[in-house]
């Protein structure tokens, strides 16, 4: 049916061109800074390239000339990993709960959605004020992590809904009929089936935390996470070092995305080998 369908309409070609332009719009600017981060030693912030060099990458790790890149990078990696783990477990647990009826489930759902759509500046201002009033010092791994979770958990829960909306309950019923305990059902039936989607939740948890700026601003305390550090540099750094930083950060994000997709593919294959297509979904 697919390839034999005769002549595509004009609108197909027009829309394909539109789509291509959209993709260029989406990726073009990033491609520009990736190229420019290899700018020669004498080069500036714009094209053309004045030779090629790795100078701007070395600047990043060099004499701390451009802020505390290494420490903030490390902090962001640790924080994103913690947020990722918490997001997966808390979302999975809540997602399982929402398959049953319980009191105030609607209220909690709306609170979760509200946590997503409430302007970030409120969260960060509120958390900052709250810690200040309670006489606690804001830290990236306490108040900062809380701020990130208000952003990642709603995504996690929404994805869990999407997963369980497509989940065929016959498999766990079969397991239960065969005498599996609730824990065994979760461990040996549900988790393997939704495994690939859980990796998706993890991907959201990590990247959303790793790149989070607005909610971190007043919540992380004195030690900056990477996006805050980068934002500070946008006003002080006027060399391609800024682009080198962009290239590096993007490379980390792409690596995380790549790893996630690879894990998803492997899990999908394994699942298919074990011969079930339950829980098949897009996410």
């Amino acid at each position: 049916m697919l390839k034999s369908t005769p002549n595509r309409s004009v609108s197909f070609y027009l829309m394909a061109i539109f789509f291509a332009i959209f993709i260029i719009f989406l990726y073009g600017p990033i491609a520009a800074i990736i190229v420019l981060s290899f700018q020669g030693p004498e080069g500036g912030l714009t094209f053309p390239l004045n030779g090629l060099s790795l100078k701007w990458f070395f600047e990043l790790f060099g004499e701390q000339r451009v802020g505390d890149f290494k420490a903030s990078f490390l902090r962001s990696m640790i924080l994103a990993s913690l947020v990722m783990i918490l997001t997966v477990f808390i979302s999975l647990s809540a997602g399982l709960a929402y398959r049953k009826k319980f009191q105030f489930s609607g209220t909690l759902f709306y609170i979760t959605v509200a946590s997503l759509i409430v302007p970030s500046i409120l969260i960060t201002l509120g958390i900052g004020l709250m810690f200040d009033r309670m006489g606690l010092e804001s830290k990236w791994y306490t108040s900062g992590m809380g701020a990130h979770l208000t952003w990642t958990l709603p995504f996690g829960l929404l994805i869990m809904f999407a997963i369980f909306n497509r989940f065929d309950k016959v498999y766990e019923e079969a397991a239960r009929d065969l005498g599996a305990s609730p824990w065994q059902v979760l461990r040996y039936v549900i988790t393997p089936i939704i495994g690939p989607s859980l990796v998706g939740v993890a991907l959201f948890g990590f990247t959303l935390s790793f790149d989070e700026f607005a909610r971190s601003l007043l919540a992380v305390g004195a030690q900056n996470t990477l996006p805050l550090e980068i934002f500070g540099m946008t006003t002080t750094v006027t060399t391609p070092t800024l682009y080198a930083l962009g290239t590096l950060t993007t490379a980390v994000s792409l690596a995380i995305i790549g790893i996630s997709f690879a894990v998803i593919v492997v899990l999908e294959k394994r699942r298919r080998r074990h011969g079930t297509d339950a829980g098949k979904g897009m996410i």
Partner: protein
Amino acid sequence: MNPKLQVLPLLAILSLFFIGPIIIIFIVSFWDYTEFSLVPDFVFTNYVELFGSKVTYSVYINTLKFAGISWAITLLIGFTVAYFLAFHVRSLRWQIVLFLVCTIPFWTSNIIRMIAWIPVLGRNGLINKTLLSLGLIENPIDWLLYSDFAVILAFVHLYTLFMVVPIFNSMMRIDRSVLEAARDAGANGFQILFHVIGPLSRPGIAIGTIFVVSLIMGDFVTVQAMSGGQSASVGVAMNHKRALLQYPAAAADAVILLIVVLTMVAILMRTVNIRKEL
């Protein structure tokens, strides 16, 4: 297992880091302040000042302008892209691949994606250089970067994805036999688009709109960075007061913004059942 126990971690985190802070903001918005400290009190001066200042209204109008224009553009692009993916791309494999190509930037840094416009839009950027060398302009265009144009461009760049994903999701749920029926009944392509696909995509459009509008209404980073500090939004004004340590005034701002955004979202939520759409 008891579902209440299972949602406890979620409830605990959201109570502590979402509901708690909102309550604090609400309380502090009635406080007084001096140059150096906050004074617990119950006064309405922050609100009186807020509503008494002309700046407030112009800032809200400016923010609504950003939101309105960006919304219209993201909707137009998002709908077209989703339509192309859902109805013109014919194999599932290619649909997934192209869909992922659209979503990957979402998982990268927004700040970097903003910075990335500098070499494109700047005075010596790609666009100005190209136009100059083509002889189309004699002097570089100044309003490409650090302007309202740049702010809206950045919003569209960052948030079109939030339209594409839910609209694509809605479109993929449309039963293809409905389209066939429309065609058999004599509808042409445009009629199918406007009378069948459009209405059936409405939940996706509503969800996308909720995202785009709430993200832009509360934004301060994009406006500050892309306008070069020359344009104001509600968030920028609030952040400015915060930087001057006028926390109660910023809190009053925040409360009003919260009411505005939640009202807008509540209206949009009436048109869609989010849980069913996932």
